[in-house]
């Protein structure tokens, strides 16, 4: 998730490969999120499915079975010749490695190790309050961590079934999940990015990018469709707290108020790579997104 390169990968091709490679009993329990899901959702806007990443984020759900599913999936793929990838010089974990120091399980298919890899995540349980939780998975190649982020369940809500048999997250929900996550901005530096920006810059910037792409897809699509989508997921996952959650989302978008233009290059090197959005377009996108959320908050209060 941390390496961003201009690698000419095709989202549709990757989704097909993921669906082909995953055991059939696992496919129904995974959702592709992140850059690949975004490229797929907006392929009509960018007129391409090419993505500027080699990382496919795959979320296993339901969360209660995620560790077992992750272990079984990891073991099976390793037996089939998939190779683990270790970011930033990390080594395989062992029983002595603390949970939060375990490497995340990233696997590349045989013969394609330099092209792309799949990173496993878990859906959070409803009890998860901490930003990130690590769960240990044991494989023949060592111990790995299966991370879950507290609002990822929002991101995968009503994931879209693709023609390839694998589901992908929808932009409106991915954006909301990012905003909720950074109501309390995560300042952790992203080691794989130039200048090691804080995590919230990338994630909240991603939310703004999703908003911009949605309104490029059709005029005012965000304003017209996202209110009902957001209310649906919030009433399902946080019944009776919809107003509070929207207030958190407002805090999330506010987190970019000062550093907005620092987030633009990160977005332009990932999901906006096909567009290279200008600074004035970016500022307008943030402003309109901010107004949209403020209006939702007012309507709930």
């Amino acid at each position, binding site marked *: 998730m941390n390496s961003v390169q201009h690698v000419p990968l095709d989202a549709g091709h990757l989704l097909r490969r993921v669906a082909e490679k995953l055991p059939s009993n696992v496919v129904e329990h995974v959702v592709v999120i992140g850059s690949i899901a975004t490229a797929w959702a907006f392929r009509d806007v960018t007129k391409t499915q090419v993505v500027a990443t080699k990382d496919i984020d795959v979320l296993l759900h339901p969360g209660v079975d995620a560790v077992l599913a992750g272990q079984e999936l990891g073991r099976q793929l390793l037996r089939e010749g998939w190779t683990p990838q270790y970011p930033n010089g990390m080594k395989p974990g062992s029983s002595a490695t603390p949970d939060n120091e375990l490497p995340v399980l990233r696997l590349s298919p045989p013969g394609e190790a330099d092209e792309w890899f799949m990173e496993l995540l878990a859906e959070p349980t409803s009890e998860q*309050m901490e930003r990130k939780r690590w769960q240990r998975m044991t494989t023949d190649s060592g111990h790995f961590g299966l991370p879950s982020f507290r609002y990822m369940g929002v991101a995968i809500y009503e994931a879209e079934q693709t023609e390839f048999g694998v589901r992908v997250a929808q932009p409106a929900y991915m954006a909301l999940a990012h905003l909720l996550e950074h*109501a*309390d*901005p995560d*300042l952790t530096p992203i080691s794989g990015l130039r200048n090691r920006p*804080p995590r919230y810059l990338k994630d909240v910037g991603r939310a703004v990018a999703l908003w*911009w792409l949605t*309104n*490029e897809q*059709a*005029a*005012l*699509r965000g*304003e017209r469709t996202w209110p009902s989508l957001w209310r649906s997921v919030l009433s399902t996952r946080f019944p009776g*707290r919809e*107003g*509070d959650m929207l*207030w*958190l989302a407002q*805090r999330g978008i*506010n987190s970019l*108020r*000062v*550093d*907005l*233009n620092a987030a633009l290059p990160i977005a332009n090197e990932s999901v906006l790579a096909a*567009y*290279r959005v*200008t*600074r*004035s*377009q970016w*500022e*307008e*996108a*943030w*402003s*309109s997104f*901010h*107004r949209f959320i*403020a209006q939702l908050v007012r309507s709930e*209060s």
Partner: protein
Amino acid sequence: MTVTRKHPRTITPRSTRDLRAEVVDLAATLAGTADKGVLVIKEPRLNVDTIRSEWQRLMKAFPSDLQSRLELEILDSPQNSGPAVPSTRQVDEVDLAPPNFKFEVMRMLIGASIMQSRSLSVEDLVEKIGASDFTVRKVLGELVDRGIARRANARFAVDATDISPEVLGTLQALPERLHFRYAAGTRPRSTGELIERFEQLMQPDPPEGWENVALSGSAASNYLRLPQVDLLGVPRVDLTAYVGKDAKEFDVTLIRKLDSGLEYIRDLFSPPSVVITVIRADPKYNYPDAVRSAKNADIYLALLDADLREQAVQFAAKRGKGYE
């Protein structure tokens, strides 16, 4: 949790000690209540990263309920004190010139000419433009003296095909037009794509500020599917905004809803991608219909302005034959 009040507090801390004291004091104010608090740091003298790190560190000392009710905002310059970061755009609102009633009268007469060569009375013009009787009579007198308009039985008429941009220019009867083009570095849409965006924008309901905007020029004449109007391509997108005589400004940022790459330009000689003609006649007689195409006169005049005279004449001829 019920939100009752929000406590904004603006400070300019000189040290992390000052910052900690303010955070703790704000938290103490909220404790035992359901209120929310915003600590606004204006023109900080501390490093922004330091402020954020200190904030995060202090939050951990508070219960999660209190944490969720505390918010931090950092305004690092006077321009950032508003609800959004400062825009790099040059202009948000354009001051409109006072209404040019000579143009508005000509526009009404041209419209009447297109529709079966009807004529109009002074009363018709006063009502539909919203100008005074004195102003309308003065304009009509000049038009008759210069041979532009004909008078018969207290009714007035022009021949639309006699009107050109040069004639209007000589009369000083040109409308106010706002030009927009794609900013440097943006990806221009084709006129066809812009027209499609306009249709998306206006359905099912136009957004705020677009209620009195209609599609004009060659796109509208194409849209109306008039036969034998020769249009090889649409060189630009023409829109008409019916703002009324009392409007003082026009919010040019509205164009960003059509395309975020468009910007207002003052240079009227650079080829525009979008032109908005501002009409000052009474909007209630000019409210765009469900099709959202401009009035006949506006389409005709926009075609003339785009140097499509032959097409304008064809349009007028076909419209006059009742192609509604």
